[in-house]
């Protein structure tokens, strides 16, 4: 070991908490520069609109740490929403159970295909992306039928809340904490890291590689479906035109949060910071009058590129250190 441990530690902290630091800096800068930014209303709107992406991103974090990718989440999000709105005519329970069962099943199937047949996650979940969107269109008459939420208890789940924040924000927070514990403090979480870090080594160390992968995709499917459900409750309808390209936003947020696309490293804190960072950028751009929202994507893209370059440099520094 030639390098100083200090430098190695610095690069590790940057890797893990870089997104959080940038987020903090951006929030402070935004508050100083714009009056509208540092208001409770604005903060709440950022949190509410970020919560759906965040739920999906939690599942995606597990997938990416395990060395995989899940492209089907955008489709599952809209599928879950439409099913929830459709199911709400039969009451709250169906509105929740139907979409979760359907999305969980898709995730499970994808996981089984990936883990048992060794097919590439990219291809399997690309098939999921196309197939699930097709299913959604099939049950909504090519997207023409928008089911409205009939159950008021279900609608309250998306719209009600306390302290100025709606329930989805609290649900997201609980899920994030649970996911952190799951990832850091349980055997399953350790297995996810091991599979993504060195699949062959993990197998030789006795890690149930296939089972771990199945669970990861099952979880991602369930969470994407749940996000769709909550969103349908918020909108009081199963809007069919949502979620196109959402999987890419989610992946971007996870990577910005410091999770390596190659697997084996990352965490929930970073992912949440990554989602909020994108939300804050969007909020700033939306409200700085003369910029169109198209710029948000340009900025997000540039930022993602920056993060990937930084990760590469940091990774090199750690190896040399």
């Amino acid at each position, binding site marked *: *070991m030639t390098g100083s441990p200090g430098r*190695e530690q610095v690069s*590790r902290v940057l890797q893990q908490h870089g997104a959080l630091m940038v987020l903090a800096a951006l929030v402070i800068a935004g508050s100083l520069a714009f009056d509208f930014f540092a208001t409770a209303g604005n903060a709440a709107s950022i949190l509410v609109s970020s919560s759906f992406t965040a739920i999906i991103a939690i599942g995606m974090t597990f997938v990416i740490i395990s060395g995989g990718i899940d492209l089907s989440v955008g489709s599952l999000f809209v599928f879950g929403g439409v099913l929830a709105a459709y199911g709400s005519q039969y009451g709250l329970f169906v509105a929740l159970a139907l979409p979760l069962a359907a999305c969980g099943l898709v995730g499970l199937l994808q996981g089984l295909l990936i883990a048992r047949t060794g097919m590439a996650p990219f291809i399997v979940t690309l098939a999921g992306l196309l197939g699930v969107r097709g299913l959604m269109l099939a049950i909504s008459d090519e997207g023409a039928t928008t089911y409205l939420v009939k159950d008021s208890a279900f609608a309250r789940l998306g719209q009600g809340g306390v302290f100025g924040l709606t329930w989805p924000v609290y649900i997201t927070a609980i899920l994030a904490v649970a996911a952190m*514990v799951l990832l*850091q*403090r*349980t*055997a399953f979480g*350790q*297995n996810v*890291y*091991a599979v993504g*870090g*060195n699949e*062959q*080594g*993990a*197998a*030789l*160390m*006795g*890690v149930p590689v296939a089972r771990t992968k199945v669970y990861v995709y099952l979880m991602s499917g369930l969470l994407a479906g749940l996000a769709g459900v909550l969103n349908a409750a918020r909108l009081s309808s199963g809007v069919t035109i949502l979620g196109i390209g959402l999987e890419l936003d989610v992946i971007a947020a996870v990577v910005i949060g410091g999770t*390596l696309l190659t697997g*084996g*490293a990352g965490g929930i804190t970073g992912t949440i910071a990554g989602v909020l960072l994108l939300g804050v950028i969007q909020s700033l751009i939306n409200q700085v009058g003369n910029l169109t929202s198209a710029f948000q994507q340009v900025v997000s893209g540039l930022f993602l590129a920056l993060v990937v370059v930084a990760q590469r440099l940091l990774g090199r520094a*750690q*190896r040399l*250190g």
Partner: protein
Amino acid sequence: MLEARQISKRFPGVVALDGVSLALFPGEVHALVGENGAGKSTLIKVFTGVHRPDGGELIYNGSPVAFGTPLDAQRAGISTIYQEVNLVPMMSVARNLMLGREPRGRLGVIDTAAMYREAERILAGYGVVTDVRRPLRTLGMGVQQMVALARAVAIDARVVIMDEPTSSLEPREVETLFSVIGKLKDDGIAVVYVSHRLDELYEVCDRVTVLRDGRVAHTGPLAGLERLKLISLMLGRDLDEVKSGGLTRFSRDRRRARERDGAPPAVRAEGLTRRQVLRGVDVSVWPGEVVGLGGLLGAGRSETAKAIVGALPLDAGRVLVAGLPLRTGSTTAAVRAGVALLPEDRKAEGIIPELSVRENIALAALPSLSRAGVVSDAKIDKVVEVFMRRLRIKAASPHQPVQELSGGNQQKVLLARWLAIRPKILLLDEPTRGIDVGAKAEVQALVDELAEEGLGVLLISSDLEELVEGADRILVLREGAVVGELSGDDVTEDKIMASIAERGAESDG
């Protein structure tokens, strides 16, 4: 304790193990040696549940067992330390060490504080003091190897299999490893020790089993077995035959040692150094000369060749082609300067099986066969035709996919590919492995011919006979350093073996 009885294992086209028997006793360190392809790794994989034997049986603690997966074998108490560390580099030391048996606190959640304490305690027993929260990859290879060892032993192992455990260790770490092995012995654990470093074998092992071509060539106590005898067993050359062979061999017409008449060598490598692999290797090959590289597996022969073409990152050293220094670490620069490497593993590193003979031959020479990026078909046809005739490549047509050709013809296609760039120096790594006798002779004759025409050739071969007959001069490598040079009448099999066997005094430090 663990016994293999008449184990056989076949893979498509090869018999990897043919009736191999081996008995391990508690508290013994058993050396398992053999050259490449002798069946060592297959045997280890049978022991550890990666492969299932086709014939024979495993007896463990007195009863027959069949391991379906590595996990089964581990649960039974057989653990393995692989040559490359098979841990998860990005996870922390403690999590690697404890993966699968983390201490639990309340609610079944991992108790990290207890995990770190336990990891520190275990590692201290191996002389490793480090921050166990650091990612494993930030530690040196030796420490990583120790973590792997600690993990292997900590899961109540009764049998520990070590596959080349010292290949990435520093001498000091090797000592620690040996003291750990001593402790394992005292605890009645059986150790299988695979290594090519003879000094180590003699230092720690009690008994030895030599595998050759999937059979047991010898088994017995190691003390009292002459080094030369051990090597001859591994290489499959009868000792007496070798000794007399050196004397009766007809004095061959060695090519005039193109003595250094002012012309620079076709290639000169100076001080090639890479941690754990090469320790200052100097090699020069003059035009028209065939230089052989001898030594056991892992001595650094292939690595030397790879370093010369820039495929192995170097810590120090440089390569000059025809007197001009080469940009290091760039295979493009090396190929452009006229260095061609015929790699050891032609399937993985050489031919592109689906492409035709023609395309495979033309691949490397495309830049010289095209103008402004557009490839001239006519030129390719000409080059391909010339080489197919010259190398007597037997193919239905130039358009036949290479994968349909025999191994010997595939090798010739590769040779043609590199000859098409008109190299100054040709590096051949095991050019005749896995090809039949007839094709072997042809390839050897071809190498001779090419050298006659002024090409410099560096020949790597585990086949001593091939080395002796093909090379004008032989450099013997051991543990990444040149330990002997033989030329003229000294180029004999027994001299090479003696040179390999010499006690590595300089490596004991």
